[in-house]
C-alpha cells in the first residue's frame, strides 16, 4: 500500500533510552540494525563493522506515521512536491505518510494513482501512501471506481476538503466500500453552516467580526457519518476533529461498537481561538481553532484513545496565498517538521499528555487505522526509528524548512524536543 524505497542500513544505535510504548519497551539499550531490519537489542552490542551512532542521552522511539498530508502533487508543485513533502516528513521523524487526493487533477482515477505511486518510488524520501477520492472530481455525486483504485494501491478514500454533502452518496460509498476494506476518511463539514466562515463561531469571532464556523458545522456531519458507519457496518475515519460535540458523537458510536476512528491535529490540541486575535493568517485553519472546552475534550479523547491518531493535516500554501489579510487567506498550516516538538513542548512538558501517549498516537494509532504494520522496536521488525533529543531547544525559522512552504503556526517559536535521526523502512532518511 505504501510506495517508495526500502533500505538496507547497517547501524548500531548505542545507549539511547529505547521507548516503544506498544511493545512495552523502556530501557537504555543498544539497537543493531542489519540490512534495514532490527537484528538485536541489548547492552554493549558488537558493532559488526556497522556505523555506530552514539545516542547516549537521546530517546529512540518507533518512527511516526502521518495519516493526513497535503502533498499538493499533482498540480501545485510550487507549494510541495513528493520529494520536498517527504523530506519534511523525514525531518519530523516520520517513516510514512498518507497523502490526500484533493489535488489538481483529483486522484479519482487508477491511472493518476499509479502515476503518483511511480513518482513516489523515484522521489519519495520515505514511503508514501495515497488516499483516493471517494467521488469523481470530489464533486460529491458519482462514486469513483473504488475497486480499481484499491487494486492500484489506494490507502483509503476521502473527499477531504470537499465534504460529501449527500447522506445518500455517503451511504452508497460505505456500502460499496465493503469490497475494498480500506477506510473511508471524512472531513466533517456541513457547508450550509460554514459559508463565509473564517473562524470558530464563538465570542472571539463575534468580537473580531469574522464569519463564524460553528461547532455544529462539524458535529452534525460526525453524527451523520457515525450513524452511517453503524448502519452499514463499515469503517469511517473522522479527520481532524475540532469540537467537543464531535467527540461526544464519536464516543457514543464507539460505545455502541461502531467502526469509527478519529484523528486530531497538533494545532487543535495546542491552541484555541484566542490565537486568532493577532489576525495572523498562519492561525487560520479548517476546521477552525475552537475554545478551551473543545481543546480539553480533544485532549481527553487523545488520552483515552478514542482519538487514536494525531495527524498534521500538513497544508502547504504559497506565500502569495498566505501573505494577505486574514480574511482573504486560505485555510491551512504546515506541520510535518514541527509536530513532535510542538506536542512535546506544549503538552508533554506541560504535563497534559504523557510522552508515551503522544508516541502511540503518532505511530501505532495511525498504523492501526489504515492497516499498516506498526513501527516497533523489536527483533525482526523493519527499522522504522526516530532518535529524539528531548532536551534540545530550537527556534522555528521560515528559511529552515525542507517543505516548500513556510505557513507554519509556530514561526519564531522556541520549541523543545528535536528529531536527530530518522530511519524509514530500513533507510537512514534524515540526520540533523
Amino acid at each position, binding site marked *: 500500500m505504501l510506495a517508495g524505497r526500502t533500505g538496507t542500513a547497517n547501524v548500531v544505535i548505542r545507549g539511547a533510552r529505547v521507548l516503544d510504548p506498544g511493545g512495552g519497551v523502556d530501557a537504555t539499550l543498544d539497537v543493531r540494525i542489519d540490512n534495514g531490519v532490527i537484528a538485536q537489542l541489548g547492552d554493549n552490542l558488537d558493532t559488526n563493522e556497522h556505523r555506530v551512532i552514539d545516542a547516549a542521552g537521546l530517546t529512540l522511539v518507533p518512527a511516526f506515521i502521518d495519516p493526513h498530508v497535503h502533498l499538493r502533487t499533482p498540480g501545485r508543485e510550487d507549494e510541495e512536491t513528493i520529494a520536498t513533502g517527504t523530506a519534511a516528513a523525514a525531518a519530523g521523524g516520520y517513516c510514512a505518510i498518507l497523502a490526500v487526493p484533493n489535488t489538481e487533477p483529483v486522484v479519482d482515477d487508477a491511472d493518476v494513482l499509479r502515476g503518483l505511486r511511480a513518482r513516489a518510488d523515484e522521489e519519495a524520501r520515505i514511503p508514501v501512501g495515497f488516499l483516493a477520492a471517494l467521488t469523481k472530481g470530489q464533486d460529491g455525486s458519482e462514486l469513483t471506481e473504488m475497486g480499481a483504485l484499491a487494486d492500484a494501491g489506494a490507502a483509503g478514500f476521502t473527499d477531504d476538503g470537499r465534504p460529501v454533502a449527500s447522506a445518500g452518496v455517503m451511504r452508497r460509498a460505505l456500502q460499496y466500500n465493503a469490497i475494498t476494506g480500506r477506510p473511508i476518511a471524512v472531513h466533517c463539514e456541513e457547508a450550509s453552516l460554514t459559508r463565509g466562515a473564517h473562524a470558530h463561531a464563538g465570542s472571539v469571532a463575534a*468580537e*473580531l*467580526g469574522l*464569519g*463564524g464556523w460553528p461547532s455544529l458545522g462539524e458535529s452534525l456531519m460526525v453524527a451523520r457519518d457515525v450513524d452511517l458507519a453503524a448502519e452499514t457496518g463499515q469503517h469511517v475515519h473522522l479527520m481532524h476533529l475540532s469540537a467537543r460535540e464531535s467527540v461526544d458523537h464519536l464516543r457514543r458510536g464507539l460505545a455502541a461498537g461502531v467502526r469509527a476512528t478519529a484523528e486530531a491535529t497538533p494545532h487543535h490540541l495546542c491552541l484555541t481561538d484566542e490565537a486568532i486575535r493577532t*489576525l495572523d493568517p498562519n492561525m487560520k485553519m479548517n476546521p477552525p481553532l475552537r475554545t478551551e472546552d473543545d481543546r480539553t475534550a480533544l485532549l481527553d479523547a487523545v488520552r483515552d484513545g478514542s482519538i487514536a491518531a494525531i495527524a498534521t493535516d500538513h497544508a502547504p500554501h504559497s506565500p*502569495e496565498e498566505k501573505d*494577505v489579510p486574514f*480574511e482573504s487567506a486560505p485555510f491551512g498550516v504546515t506541520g510535518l517538521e514541527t509536530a513532535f516538538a510542538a506536542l512535546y513542548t506544549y503538552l508533554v512538558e506541560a504535563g497534559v499528555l504523557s510522552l508515551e501517549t503522544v508516541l502511540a498516537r503518532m505511530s501505532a494509532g495511525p498504523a492501526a487505522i489504515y492497516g499498516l504494520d506498526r513501527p516497533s522496536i523489536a527483533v525482526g521488525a523493519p527499522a522504522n526509528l526516530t532518535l529524539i533529543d528531548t532536551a534540545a531547544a530550537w527556534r522555528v525559522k521560515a528559511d529552515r524548512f525542507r517543505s516548500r512552504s513556510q505557513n507554519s503556526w509556530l514561526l519564531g517559536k522556541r520549541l523543545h524536543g528535536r528529531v536527530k535521526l530518522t530511519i524509514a523502512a530500513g533507510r537512514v532518511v534524515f540526520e540533523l
Partner: protein
Amino acid sequence: MTDLRVVGGDLLPPADERRHLLSVADLTRDDVDRLLATARSFAHSQERDNKKLPTLRGRLILNVFYESSTRTSSSFELAAKRLSADTMTLKAVGSSVDKGESLKDTALTLSAYDPDVIVLRHPEAGAGEFVARLTEANVVNAGDGKHQHPTQALLDLYTMHQAFGRLDGLQVAIVGDVAHSRVARSLVQALRLVGADAILVGPPTLVPAGIAEVSHDIAAIAGADVVYVLRMQRERMLEGANFVPSLREYTARWGVTPGRLRDGQRVMHPGPMNRGVEIDARVADSEAALIVDQVRAGLIVRMAVLYDLLTTGPVAVEATVEVA
C-alpha cells in the same frame, strides 16, 4: 575600548515606539482621554477664519480606500490638510488594484514614498495588521471588514461627551445589524473602556452573543441615553443570507420611530442612513439627532488621531493655535 560606530539601524526608532491605530483594543483609557482632549482643542481652531494649523507640515499622509466611503475618506483628507500635511487619497477603482495588484504590492509601492501615516480602509478583517507588518508608516485602520473602525468609535465618544458632558455611566442602545457592523464592534469596546454601558438590540440573526448584553425587543431602548442606529443593508435579505424576511418586517419591529423614543434620548447614526428603514425621517431630522454633530466630530477627532501619532510628548495645542 568601546566601539563608537553608529550603524544605520541605531538611528531608527525602536519598533515598539511606532504606534498604529488598528483597533480600539490598542487604546487605554488614558489614550482616549488624551485624544478627546486634543480633539476639543482642535475644535476651537476650527472656529477661526484661518482653520489651518502648521503642525504636520512636510508630513505625508496617504489615504488608501478599497471600499467606498464619503465621510471617512473626506474627513481624513481634510484633517490632514487642516494640519498642513501633504495628503493623497487613493481609491481601489482607477488604481493598479483594478489590474489585480495585491495589497502587499500596493502597500510596498506606497511605502516607497515614505509616508508618515497610511490610512487604510479594506473589505477584509486583518488588512490593517497586514499592512502594518509591511510598512514603516503608522497605520490607521479606517475600517477593515466587519472587524474594527476605531476612529468612528472615538468620534462617537466625542459626540456623546459633547452632548452629555460625561461618558461614565452612559447607557447606549445599539440597534440593528450588529453582526455585520465594525462600527458596533469598535463602539462596544470603546464604551466599555470609558465606563459606559452598551445593550445590543435587533433581530436574533443579526445580533451576536458574546459581545455585550442583548435584547431582541425594541422596547429595550427605553432605558438608554443614546439610541445608536446602525445601517440596515439590503443584501442581508438576499437568498442564501435570509437574516430577516423583509425590510418591511425589519422596519416594523426594529425601526427607530418617534413613538419609540422618549424625551431626553439622543439618536446617533454612523451613516449613510436609510431613511424610512432603520430610522424614521422625523427622528433623523429631530432635535434629538446628533448625526451632523458626529460628522463634525469626525474631522477634529481624525485631526487628533493624526496629531497624536506623529507628535510625541505633551499635547501643546493651544500653543500651536497661537503660532497659527
